[in-house]
């Protein structure tokens, strides 16, 4: 396993370099914004990666809270399975009822509704299999930290893109504001973990993570309504995207996903090592008085 790391590292570096070349040279120049638009190829994949990592944090936190007790664990398993089945069924029901079909928001495909539920359930059970209860907590910390790093990139590249294009550094539009709030929530999560001296910090942090995750859709929704009442600059075209640009975007996303995976892996190993050291130190502290008596 450990030998794979350098090889994967080299491959990821190569992929990132290729993605950079794609973004700077191969991708066509945007008509209205010019070369600055190329920030898009770093900004959007970072955002998607951050959201994915935060979602993994949500799943890991739930698992940590739920798996400590066998009863709640069973209940949670059934809830997840029911969720997956319901989303599949919902897709069919929506198709059959014309009123619901009309109520479907733009751009949402029935197939994505039908597949997302089972995919989420699959990831939940995969995590359950791969990580023990303690390790779920380590995974939660890891994904939160790396997620914050990627979210910071989003919040830095966003204004750097906005300034030359619209002349302002910041605007309180939906996406930027909800990303900022997301960043704040997870930074507060990390601060709680750092500053809490209770032995049950992981439990508290997991509870906070669940709250934060519940909050995110509410934040997005409330700010969306809040801001659509006022005129605002529109971010990124709502319509279709040039297929060449799409290709470059996806290549960059893949590269950043591989990079994020390696960073998470490193952070996770660090976390596991730290916990082992702490356990050993605790044992040492227990054993020392005996040695002193002798």
């Amino acid at each position: 396993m450990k030998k794979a790391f350098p090889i994967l590292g080299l491959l990821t570096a190569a992929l990132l370099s290729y993605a950079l070349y794609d973004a700077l040279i191969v991708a066509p120049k945007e008509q209205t914004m010019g070369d600055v638009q190329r920030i898009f190829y770093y900004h959007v994949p970072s955002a998607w990666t951050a959201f994915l990592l935060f979602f993994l944090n949500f799943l890991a936190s739930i698992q940590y809270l739920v798996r400590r007790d066998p009863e709640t664990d069973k209940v949670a398993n059934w809830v997840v399975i029911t969720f997956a089945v319901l989303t599949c069924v919902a897709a069919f029901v929506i198709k059959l009822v014309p009123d619901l079909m009309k109520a479907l928001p733009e751009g949402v495909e029935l197939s994505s509704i039908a597949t997302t539920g089972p995919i989420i359930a699959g990831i939940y059970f995969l995590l359950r299999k791969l990580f023990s209860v303690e390790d779920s907590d380590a995974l939660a910390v890891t994904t939160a930290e790396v997620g914050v790093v990627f979210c910071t990139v989003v919040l830095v590249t966003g204004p750097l893109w906005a300034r030359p294009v619209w002349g302002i550094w910041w605007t309180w539009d939906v996406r930027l504001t909800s990303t900022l709030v997301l960043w704040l929530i997870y930074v507060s999560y990390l601060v709680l973990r750092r500053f809490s001296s209770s032995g049950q910090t992981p439990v508290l942090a997991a509870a906070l993570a669940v709250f934060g995750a519940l909050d995110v859709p509410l934040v997005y929704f409330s700010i969306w309504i809040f801001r659509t009442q006022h005129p605002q600059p529109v971010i990124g075209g709502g319509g279709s995207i040039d297929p060449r640009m799409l290709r470059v975007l996806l290549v960059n996303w893949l590269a950043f996903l591989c990079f994020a995976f390696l960073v998470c892996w490193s952070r996770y190993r660090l976390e596991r090592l730290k916990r082992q050291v702490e356990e050993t130190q605790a044992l040492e502290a227990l054993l020392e008085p005996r040695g002193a008596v002798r």
Partner: protein
Amino acid sequence: MTYLYVAYAATWAIHVGYLITLAVRYSRLKQEINDLNKK
């Protein structure tokens, strides 16, 4: 134009900065492990 390069540079600065903090934490842990091993 320069905004583009600043953005890309900032992205990598943030990532490299984080990786450096990881490396620092690693070396501190290794130090603690050495201390424990000596005991």
